[in-house]
Structure formats: C-alpha cells, structure tokens
C-alpha cells in the first residue's frame, strides 16, 4: 500500500467516480441495491448533490439542493465532464429509512439520520441504545461498502471500459 496521504490525493477520483456511477445505478440499475434478506429496499437521491468539473483550468462546482429539485442541471454538468463529489441519499428498508450524505474524496458519512430508537433513562437503556444505533449505522455502512465493492470490482475489470462506461454514457446522453 502507498503512503496514506499520497494515496488519498492520488486516488481521490475513485470516490467521485463511485458517486457518479452510484447515481447511474440509482437511476438505471436498482437491481444492484439488493440485500440477502430479500426485503423491499430502495435507494434514492436525497436533497443535495454536488458536482465538480476540473477539466478546464478552473474548478467549476454545481450544487443542486431541495427536496424536489430537478436533476437536469446535474446531467448537463455530467455531459460537460463533471463528476459527483457529494451525494445525499435516502435509503429505505421495509418501513425504516436512513438519510445520509457521502463525500467522494473521503467516503465519509455526514448528516446520517437513522430510524428512531428508544429514549435513554438508565445505564441499561444506554447500553441498549448503543447496540441498537450501532446496528442501524452499520446498515448504512454495509450498503455503501457493498456498492463500493461492486463499483471497484467493475473499475479494475475489463468490463469497465467495454461495458460499464458505455452504459453510463448512454444514460448521461439519453
């Protein structure tokens, strides 16, 4: 493995490409968002998406926010060569919902909201809450991990250039 700070900067494009690919998956290939338990799951774009285009000399940033914001400007930005650098997601399993934002360069999770848990009045409640919250956080983390695995396996395969990228381009220009 390379030095951490070197690899963070050199491969920061991986996270942005992952989020761009993820938007494509959400729009065109929901089958990838599966769970072994076969519960009803859905993943949607939430209320914020940030794109960046650094293909020219200056970095151009486009932010789309709002609960019912149209994403056409984002598609237009993709056509001009932008990638997604930040994505707010809405994940639903059965009647439980998770909201969170992922940043491309770090894949850190921010503004993570999980389904409600019980109140805390005693040490026993605290222990229960920690375990329950850990389980709920892990659901969102597991989702991102599985999707990232799918993405990176595609990225290092021959299919990336021959099959996956053409499909993403087809979606961008459709």
């Amino acid at each position, binding site marked *: 493995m390379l030095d951490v700070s070197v690899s963070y900067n050199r491969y920061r494009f991986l996270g942005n490409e992952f989020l761009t690919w993820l938007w494509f998956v959400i729009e065109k290939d929901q089958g990838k968002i599966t769970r072994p338990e076969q519960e009803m799951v859905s993943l949607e774009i939430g209320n914020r998406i940030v794109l960046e285009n650094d293909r020219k000399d200056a970095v151009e940033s486009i932010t789309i926010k709002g609960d019912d914001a149209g994403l056409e400007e984002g598609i237009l930005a993709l056509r001009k060569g932008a990638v997604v650098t930040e994505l707010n997601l809405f994940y639903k399993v059965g009647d439980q919902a998770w909201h969170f934002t992922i940043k491309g*360069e*770090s894949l850190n999770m921010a503004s*993570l909201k999980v389904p409600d848990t019980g109140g805390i009045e005693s040490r026993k409640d605290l222990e229960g809450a*920690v375990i329950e919250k850990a389980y709920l956080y892990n659901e969102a*983390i597991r989702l991102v991990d599985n999707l990232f695995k799918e993405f990176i396996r595609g990225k290092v395969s021959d299919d990336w250039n021959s099959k996956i990228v053409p499909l993403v381009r087809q979606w*961008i220009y459709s």
Partner: protein
Amino acid sequence: MGSLSSNVSITRYKVEGRVEEPVIETIYNGLTQNAIVTTNDDISEKTVGWTSLDTPFDPNFEGSSFLIGTHLVFSLRVDKKTIPPKIVKKHCAIEAAKRLAESGREYLSRTEKKMIREHVMSVLILRIPSAPNIYDLTWDYEDSSLWFFSNLKSANEELETLFSRSFNLTLIRLFPYTMAGLTAGLSDKERDILARLSPTNFAE
C-alpha cells in the same frame, strides 16, 4: 453523546495490529493512562485525552464500562482555550502603553512587542476557561474496525495520535483507495490494477 444523537457524522478506520492479552485490561490501562486531566490552573491551550461515554466530564472506565456488547465505546475529549484576537489586541495595547509611559520612549522594539504578547497570552490563558469538545467512538475489536463520530480533520488527527500512543496500534483511515485495497476483497492481481488506475471521462 454525539454517537447517539439524531444526526451523526462518521469517519471509518481499520485498526492495524492486535491488542496485547488480556485485551480488556490492556484497553483499560490505555484509557486510564491517557484519560483527560483537567486542572483549574492549566496553562496549556489544548488538553487531549480519553473520557467515558456517559460521564464525559468525569472520566470513569471502572467495571469495563467501556465494553458494551461486542463494542468498545468511549470518547475523545479535546479541551481548548480560545482567546479572541480582539481581547489579545486590547491587552497588548494596554500593556504597551504602560511600558512606553514607564520608559518615556515613543516606540517599542519588535522583541519587546513579542515579549508583551507572550506575557499577555500567558496571563489570559489562566483566566479563560477551556471549551470541551467531545467525540465518541465505537471500536469493534473482533472486526478491527472503528467508527469515529466526527469528520473534522483536526479531531481525526488527535484521535489517530492518541490512539497510537494509548494502545500501540495504528489506525488506517478508510477512504476510497484504502477501502479498495483493504476491505473490498480484491485479489493481488486486481490490487495491482488498482494501483495503476486513472480517472475515467464519462463525458467523452
């Protein structure tokens, strides 16, 4: 408790290395030896140490209280004294005027001004209380994974330093490249390809 609030941020780590047996005792020692210590006459601008999740202002790790289920749960506390620049400027001006009046001179040298500033800072630092910042963490020892409930760069850097000092273990921050290399289950051949990857232009 940040980790139990309704809205959290998480930075993920892989823990490299194993804790010396007996694990719980080793972790207890690491926590107590590096627990935050605060005194009223503290002259340092910043104090960093571990504290307990449920009593962050009175660190207590007795009875393995940091062990919940299969998780090790505790908090990083960073107490910081921040003196507003305008206060420093005001006190420096007062002190400089006093020195000028005493010496009968019109100007102070650069060295004198620097000494005045250092004196003012040392006096103010004793008078200003530190503001505590508490960041929870959840460490899954069996899985060698750790969630730190903050995305703040400075807090993450404090965590990495203190964790290494306390437990003699290295935290590897998980970001796209380290996730791909360490947690995505790639083969050696795929990892070689990963190292040679370049950006894709989706807009060709």
